[in-house]
C-alpha cells in the first residue's frame, strides 16, 4: 500500500471512530435528558390516559433499557437507518434528506463567499500593510468579527427588505409563485443573497484577518527574501511565493470551521426562515424529537468529518511536504 493511500485510509478509520463516538455521546446525552416524549405526544392529542401513553412508549421502544435502545439505534445506523421521527411520522433520513440540500446550498455559498472575499481582502490589506486601505479593511473585518450573526441578519432584513425592498427577507423561494427553470434558479438566488452573506460575513472576517496575518508572516520569511534577490517583480512574489504559502493555514482553518458553519446555519436559518437542517435541529431540540436530533447530529458530524478529509486532501495537493513520509 502506498503511503498517501495508507494515510487516507487511516484517516477514514479514525473518522469512522469519531462518528461512532459522536453517535453514542449524543444518544446518551439526549436519553439522559428530562422530559418524556410520550407525554408530549399525549398532551398534543388533547387528552391522554395511561393506556395511551404506555402504548406510545412501547411503540417507540421507550420502555426498553437505555442500552437496548442505544444498541437498536446503532444497529439501525449500521444499516443506514437513522430512526423514525414519531413527532413527524417520517423516517429521519427522509426529513434530513429533504432539508439537507437547502443547508448545503446555504453553507456552501456562504463558505465560498467568505473564502474568496476574505482572502482577497486579507491579501489587499497585507500588501498595503500600514496604509489606510489596510486600516479600513482591518477595521471592517474586526467589526464583522465581533458582530452577532443573528443581529446582522435582522439588520439586513430591516435594511434590504423592509426599507429598500431590494431582496426577499425569508424563505428559499417566492411562495406560490411557481417559477420554473431559470426563473426558479434566479428566485432561489435572490433569496439566498441575504442569508448567505449574513452567514458568510463572520467567516469572511476570520479569513481576511487570517490571510493578512499569514501573509505578513510569510512576507518576512527567508524564501521571500530569496525571491526578491532573484529580481522578481512584486506580482509574482506575492502570488507564487507569499500567497501560496500563506494560504496553507487558512485551508486548515477552513476545514476546522466547516462544522461551525452548521452552527451558524441554525441561527441564519432561524432568522431567514431557510428550510434547512439547522432549522430542523432547532425545532427538534425544542420538541425533544430525539430521533431527529440524533440524525441531524450524526449528519452534521459526518459533514464535518468529510469536510476535514477534503481539506486534508486539498492540503496534500497544495503542500507537497504533507503525506511525503520520506
Amino acid at each position, binding site marked *: 500500500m502506498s503511503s498517501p493511500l495508507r494515510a487516507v485510509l487511516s484517516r477514514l478509520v479514525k473518522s469512522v471512530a469519531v462518528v461512532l463516538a459522536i453517535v453514542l455521546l449524543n444518544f446518551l446525552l439526549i436519553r439522559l435528558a428530562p422530559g418524556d416524549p410520550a407525554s408530549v405526544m399525549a398532551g398534543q392529542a388533547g387528552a391522554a390516559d395511561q393506556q395511551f401513553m404506555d402504548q406510545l412508549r412501547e411503540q417507540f421502544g421507550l420502555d426498553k433499557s437505555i442500552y437496548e435502545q442505544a444498541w437498536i439505534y446503532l444497529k439501525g445506523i449500521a444499516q443506514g437507518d437513522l430512526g423514525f421521527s414519531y413527532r413527524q411520522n417520517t423516517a429521519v433520513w427522509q426529513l434530513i434528506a429533504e432539508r439537507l440540500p437547502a443547508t448545503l446550498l446555504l453553507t456552501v455559498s456562504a463558505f465560498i463567499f467568505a473564502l474568496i472575499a476574505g482572502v482577497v481582502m486579507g491579501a489587499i490589506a497585507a500588501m498595503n500593510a500600514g496604509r489606510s486601505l489596510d486600516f479600513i479593511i482591518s477595521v471592517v473585518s474586526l467589526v464583522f468579527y465581533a458582530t452577532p450573526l443573528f443581529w446582522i441578519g435582522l439588520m439586513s432584513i430591516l435594511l434590504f427588505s423592509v426599507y429598500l425592498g431590494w431582496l426577499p427577507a425569508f424563505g428559499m423561494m417566492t411562495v406560490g409563485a411557481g417559477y420554473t427553470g431559470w426563473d426558479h434558479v434566479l428566485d432561489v438566488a435572490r433569496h439566498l443573497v441575504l442569508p448567505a452573506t449574513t452567514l458568510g460575513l463572520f467567516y469572511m472576517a476570520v479569513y481576511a484577518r487570517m490571510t493578512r496575518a499569514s501573509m505578513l508572516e510569510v512576507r518576512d520569511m527567508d524564501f521571500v527574501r530569496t525571491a526578491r*534577490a532573484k529580481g522578481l517583480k512584486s506580482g509574482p512574489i506575492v502570488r507564487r511565493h507569499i500567497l501560496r504559502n500563506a494560504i496553507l493555514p487558512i485551508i486548515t482553518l477552513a476545514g476546522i470551521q466547516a462544522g461551525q458553519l452548521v452552527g451558524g446555519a441554525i441561527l441564519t436559518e432561524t432568522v431567514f426562515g431557510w428550510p434547512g437542517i439547522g432549522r430542523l435541529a432547532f425545532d427538534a431540540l425544542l420538541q425533544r424529537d430525539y430521533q431527529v436530533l440524533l440524525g441531524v447530529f450524526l449528519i452534521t458530524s459526518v459533514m464535518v468529518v468529510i469536510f476535514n478529509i477534503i481539506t486534508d486532501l486539498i492540503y496534500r495537493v497544495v503542500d507537497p511536504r504533507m503525506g511525503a513520509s520520506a
Partner: protein
Amino acid sequence: MSDPLLKIEKLTVALPSAGDRVNAVSDVSLTLDKGEILCIVGESGSGKSITASTVMGLLPSDQLKITGGSVTFDGIDLLALDENGMRKVRGARIGMIFQEPMTSLNPVMKIGRQIEEVMEAHGIAREKRQARAIELLQAVGLPEPEAIAERYPFRLSGGQRQRVMIAMALALEPDMLIADEPTTALDVTTQAQILKLIRDLQRERGMGVLFITHDFGVVADIADRVAVMQKGVVVEVGPASEVLVSPGHPYTKSLIDAVPGFREQASAGSTEAPVLKVSGLRKVYRTGGGLFAVPKEFVAVNDVSFSIARGETLGLVGESGSGKSTIGQCVMRINGIDGGKVEFNGSDIVNASGAALKAYRAQAQMVFQDPFASLNPRHKVGRSIMAGPLAHGVDTATARSRMEQLLKRVGLDASAADRYPHEFSGGQRQRIGIARALAVEPDLLVADEAVSALDVSVQAQVLDLLREIRDEFHLAMLFITHDLRVASQICDRVIVLHRGRIVEEGEVTNVFGDPQDSYTRNLLAAVPGQKWHRGEQQALPA
C-alpha cells in the same frame, strides 16, 4: 587599475531608536574588484548582514534607514535606483546566497521552477530556461539534475539546498556574488565542499565575491582581502595574508587569538577509577506509527561503550546527526535506552527510579547548548540556580549561600541573582548555566555543545572557565561538540562518532594528530583554516 566593481563609501544605516547603538553600520567604506573575494568578518551583530543587504537593496526599509554614503556598482549608483531599476540588477548582475539553506527556498515550489524564475524575471526565453536550469544544477555538483529539478526543497539536504541557492544566484552569470554566511549552518565536511565550489566558480567566471563569515578559518581558506567589522564600523581592511598573520587592530588580534587551534601537547590523562561506565549503548528512535503505518525505526546510537574518570574530560565529536546529543541524554536519563548498560559509580542508572534516580540527579549535571533556551525566562537567575539544591532537600539558606558563591565563581556579580535571564548576554547566560549545574555539587558534568553558540572570543572564555572548574571540583566531564578544534582544546580523550557508532577513540593528540579511520581523516581535512594555523603562508591566496 580600472574602477572597482563595487564601491561602498561612507555608508551609514541608522537603527530604530530602541536599538543599543545609534547606527547599525556607520561610515563603512569598502571596495571589491572583479575576480576578487572580499571577506567581511566580525562578531554577531557587527553589521555584516546589513552592509550586504544594503548593496542588494533588501534592507527592511520600514525599520532601517540609510542615512548617508553611497554604493556604486559597476558605475551605477545603487542607492539612487528605483525599485524597478534595482530589480533588474538583482539576480541578473548581483547574485546572493543566504545563511539558512533550510528556509531560503520556497517550500511549495519545485527546485527547477525556482531556478527558472530568475531567468523568467530577467526575460530569458521560456524554451531555454529548463535546459539552463539543469545545466546549472549540474554545475553546482548535484547528482541527477533532472530528477532534482522536479523535487521540492524538503527532499534535499542542507548542503544540497545551498548548492541550489548557488545555482540560482549564478543563473544569469552575475558580475558579483554576495554570500552571507553561506556555510555557517552546514557540517564541516559540507562546508568544505561548498567553499570549494564557490571558490572554483568564482575563478571560472571571474566574479567578484562579497563573502560574509565570522569564522577566521573560512576567511583563511577563501579570502583575497579581509574587512573586519566591530559594532558597525570597519576597523581593519587589507589583504588576507596581512590581516591574518599580522593583524593591525587590537580587536582583530583578539579575535584571531581566540580562534581555537589543535592542541599539540598530549594530555596527562587520569589514573582514577571511572565514575561513568557506558557499555554497548543502543538507542532507537521510533516515529510515525499508527493504525496503518509501521513505526519507522532509526538507530541513533549503536553499540557505544566508554568510561570517564573523575578529573577527566571525554570528548564526543562527529558531524550533525551522528548521535552525540542522544548519548548525552541517555547518560543523563533524559532518554530511555534500548540496549546496553550505563553505570555510575558501579550502580546501574538505566533502571534507577525513585530515590536512586534522585541521588543520581545530584551527582550528574548538564550544561546546554543554547544559552537563550536553557534558562527559564520567567525565573530569576537566583531561583534557577537554587532549584537544584532545593529539589534535593537542601535548606533555603544553604542553597542561597551556595548560589551566591557560585555566581562569584563563574565571574558574575551576586546581584545577578535578582535579574531575569534576558538581561544577560549569551556568554553570561552560559556561565549561569554552569553555576546551576554546579549547585548540586555533581561528580559528572555533561556539556552538550556548551560553547557552539558563542562568538569565538566568548567561546574561549567559557572554555577556560569549564577547564578551571573541572580541575577545581575534580569533575568527570563528557564534552559534546562538533568542533574538532574545541574538542582538542579541552578534552583528554575523544570519541569520534559516525552514524551512531564509534569509529575511533583515543587520546586527543593521537586521534587528531594521527587519525586511523578514513572518516576521521575526512572530518579533520574539512576543518577550515588549517594551513593558516600551521603557518603555511604560501597556501593563502595571493
